[in-house]
C-alpha cells in the first residue's frame, strides 16, 4: 500500500483510514501531498508548508482524521503563518493566533499543507480578484475555478490536496466546488465558529469543507462544528454529525423553484439538473414545484447587505497596527493612500457601495430596505421547508467561464451567484455535489456542473444523507482533473 497512484486516488477519509490501519504512515502521506502541492500549476497556493511547519501545532490525536493533510483558505488566521486574505494590504502579515476552525482540525491531528488562493477578502466569484494572481481551473486552465474559495476548490479537484477548508458568504464554497467538480458544503450560519476567519460580511460568512465526496464533507463538518465562546453567533449542531450512509431517498420531497430558473441558465447545466431530478425520483424521492417569491431580489439585497457589512469590517485596515502603510505624510494620507494602494478594484467597489448604502440619508432606502427584503426571503424558505424536505437548484447558471470573461461587468459576475445567494441570506445549509459534465455555451470540452441541495437550518445530517444517496446514484468521476493541477 502507499504507492502514489493510490494515495492520489484516496479521499480524505480513505487516507485517514489507511493511516489508522497502519497501511501507510502519516509522514509518507504528508511527504506525498507536500510534493504534489510543490508542483502547483494552478496558482492554487499562496503559501505552502514545509514538513516542520505542517506538523507544528498538530495534536497526535489518534482520531479518525489524524494524519490526513488539509489545505486552508488564506482567509483563516494561522499563528506564525502568513495570512493575507489575498490582499496587498495584508501582504506579509503573520497573525499571533489561530482561527477556531483551524484549531479544531489541528486538534483532530490534521497537518496543514498550505494556504490557498482566493478572491481578495472573499469578494468575487472567479478568484480573479486575488492580489496574487488568478487561480486556474484544473479541468481547463483557460477557465476560472470559481470563487471566492477558488484555490481551495482547485487544489482538491486538481490533485494538490486531499481536501480543503473554504468560506462561503454568498456562494463562495458551493460555486467553486460546482465549477471544479467536487463537493462543497456551506453549513447553517452559526454551525461553525467564525473566530479567526477574516470577516467579509459578518451576518453571512460561514466556513465549510471542499472535498472529493460527501462522506469527507461530513467528517470535516463533524470536526469543525461547535459552539465557540469567542463567537457570540456560534451555535454548533446539536447531536453532532456522523458519516452518512443513506442510499435511498424514499419519502423525501425535493422542491424546485422553477420561477427562479427561467432565464440565463446554460442548456448543458439545465440538462444535468434535469438528469439529477430523474436520479432523485429513481431513488424514491419526490419532486415538487415550489415558489420562493422573493428570491429573485436576493442578489440585489445581497449587494447592499454584504458590501455594507464589508465596508465596516474592512475599515480596520488602516496602516496603524499591522499590514501595509503606504504614507506617513499625515494622518489622513496614511489612511487614504494606504487603503487606496492596499485594496484591489473589486474590494474598493464594494467598500464604496457599502459606505454609500449606510451613509446619511440612504440607510433606510438601501440597508434598512435590504434587511427587510432579507426577512421576506427567510420567510420564503420557511414556507418552502413547510412543504418539502429540500430545495434543489443548479449550483450556478453556467459552467466555469473563461478567465476575463466577466471582469468588465460586475453585475454579470454577481449573477453567477443567483442560486447560492438566497440560501446564504436565509442562513440555511446547502451542499453542491457534482452532477456530471456539460459542454459550455460557447462550445469546448465538457466541464463539471454542480447540483445544489438546501435543507432547513441545522438539518445538516439529513442533508448529508440525501447528498450521499444521490452521489452514489450519479456516480460522478472527477479523476480526469487530478493530474490537471500539476504545472
Amino acid at each position, binding site marked *: 500500500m502507499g504507492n502514489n497512484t493510490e494515495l492520489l486516488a484516496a479521499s480524505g477519509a480513505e487516507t485517514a483510514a489507511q493511516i489508522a490501519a497502519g497501511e501507510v504512515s502519516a509522514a509518507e502521506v504528508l511527504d506525498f501531498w507536500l510534493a504534489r502541492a510543490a508542483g502547483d500549476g494552478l496558482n492554487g497556493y499562496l503559501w505552502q508548508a514545509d514538513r516542520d511547519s505542517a506538523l507544528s501545532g498538530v495534536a497526535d490525536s489518534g482520531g479518525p482524521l489524524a494524519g490526513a493533510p488539509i489545505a486552508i483558505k488564506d482567509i483563516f488566521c494561522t499563528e506564525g503563518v502568513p495570512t493575507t486574505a489575498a490582499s496587498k494590504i495584508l501582504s506579509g502579515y503573520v497573525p499571533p493566533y489561530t482561527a477556531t476552525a483551524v484549531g479544531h482540525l489541528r486538534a483532530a491531528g490534521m497537518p496543514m499543507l498550505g494556504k490557498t488562493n482566493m478572491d481578495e477578502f472573499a469578494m468575487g466569484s472567479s478568484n480573479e480578484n486575488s492580489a496574487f494572481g488568478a487561480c486556474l481551473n484544473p479541468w481547463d486552465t483557460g477557465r476560472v475555478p470559481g470563487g471566492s474559495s477558488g484555490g481551495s476548490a482547485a487544489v482538491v479537484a486538481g490533485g494538490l490536496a486531499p481536501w480543503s477548508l473554504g468560506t462561503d458568504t454568498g456562494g463562495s464554497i458551493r460555486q467553486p466546488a460546482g465549477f471544479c467538480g467536487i463537493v462543497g458544503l456551506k453549513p447553517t450560519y452559526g454551525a461553525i465558529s467564525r473566530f479567526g476567519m477574516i470577516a467579509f460580511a459578518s451576518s453571512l460568512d460561514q466556513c465549510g469543507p471542499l472535498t472529493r465526496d460527501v462522506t469527507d464533507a461530513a467528517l470535516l463538518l463533524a470536526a469543525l462544528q461547535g459552539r465557540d465562546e469567542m463567537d457570540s453567533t456560534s451555535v454548533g449542531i446539536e447531536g453532532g454529525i456522523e458519516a452518512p450512509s443513506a442510499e435511498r431517498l424514499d419519502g423525501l420531497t425535493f422542491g424546485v423553484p422553477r420561477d427562479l430558473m427561467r432565464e440565463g441558465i446554460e442548456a448543458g447545466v439545465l440538462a444535468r439538473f434535469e438528469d439529477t431530478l430523474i436520479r432523485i425520483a429513481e431513488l424514491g424521492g419526490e419532486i415538487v414545484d415550489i415558489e420562493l417569491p422573493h428570491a429573485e*431580489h436576493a442578489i440585489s439585497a445581497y449587494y447592499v447587505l454584504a458590501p455594507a457589512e464589508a465596508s465596516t469590517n474592512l475599515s480596520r485596515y488602516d496602516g496603524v497596527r*499591522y499590514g501595509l502603510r503606504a504614507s506617513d505624510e499625515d494622518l489622513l494620507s496614511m489612511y487614504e493612500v494606504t487603503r487606496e494602494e492596499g485594496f484591489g478594484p473589486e474590494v474598493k467597489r464594494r467598500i464604496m457601495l457599502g459606505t454609500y448604502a449606510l451613509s446619511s440619508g440612504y440607510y433606510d432606502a438601501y440597508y434598512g430596505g435590504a434587511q427587510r427584503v432579507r426577512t421576506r426571503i427567510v420567510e420564503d424558505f420557511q414556507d418552502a421547508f413547510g412543504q418539502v424536505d429540500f430545495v434543489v437548484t443548479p449550483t450556478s447558471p453556467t459552467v466555469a467561464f473563461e478567465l476575463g470573461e466577466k471582469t468588465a461587468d460586475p453585475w454579470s459576475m454577481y449573477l453567477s451567484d443567483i442560486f447560492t445567494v438566497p440560501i446564504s441570506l436565509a442562513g440555511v445549509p446547502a451542499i453542491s455535489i457534482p452532477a456530471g459534465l456539460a459542454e459550455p455555451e460557447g462550445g469546448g470540452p465538457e466541464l463539471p456542473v454542480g447540483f445544489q441541495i438546501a435543507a432547513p437550518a441545522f438539518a445538516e445530517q439529513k442533508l448529508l444523507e440525501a447528498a450521499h444517496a444521490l452521489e452514489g446514484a450519479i456516480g460522478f468521476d472527477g479523476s480526469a482533473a487530478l493530474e490537471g493541477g500539476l504545472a
Partner: protein
Amino acid sequence: MIEREQVLHVARLSRLRLSEEEIDTLTGELSSVLDHVDKLAEVDIEGVEPTSHVVPLENVLRDDEPRPSLDRDVALSQAPDAHDGAFRVPSPQAEA
C-alpha cells in the same frame, strides 16, 4: 444613479484616495449596480421587521474572567511603525 460628487464624498468617508480614472470608472459601475439594486423598492416590505441575524440566540455573555494578554513584543511585531512600546502614527494635518 450616482453622481461624481457623491462618489467623491463616499470615497472620503471610506478613506480611499481614488485616482481620477477610478472615480470615473466607479461612477459608472456603481450607477449600474445601483440601478439593479433599486429594484428592491418593488418588494412590499410594509410592516416587515429587518433581519440582522438569522441565529436564534440571545444573552450570549462571557464571564468576567481575565485571559492572558499578548506579550507586548508580539502585539507590536506587525506594526508598520512601533516606537517606545507604542504604535506610532503621523499627526493630523495642521489646520490650514
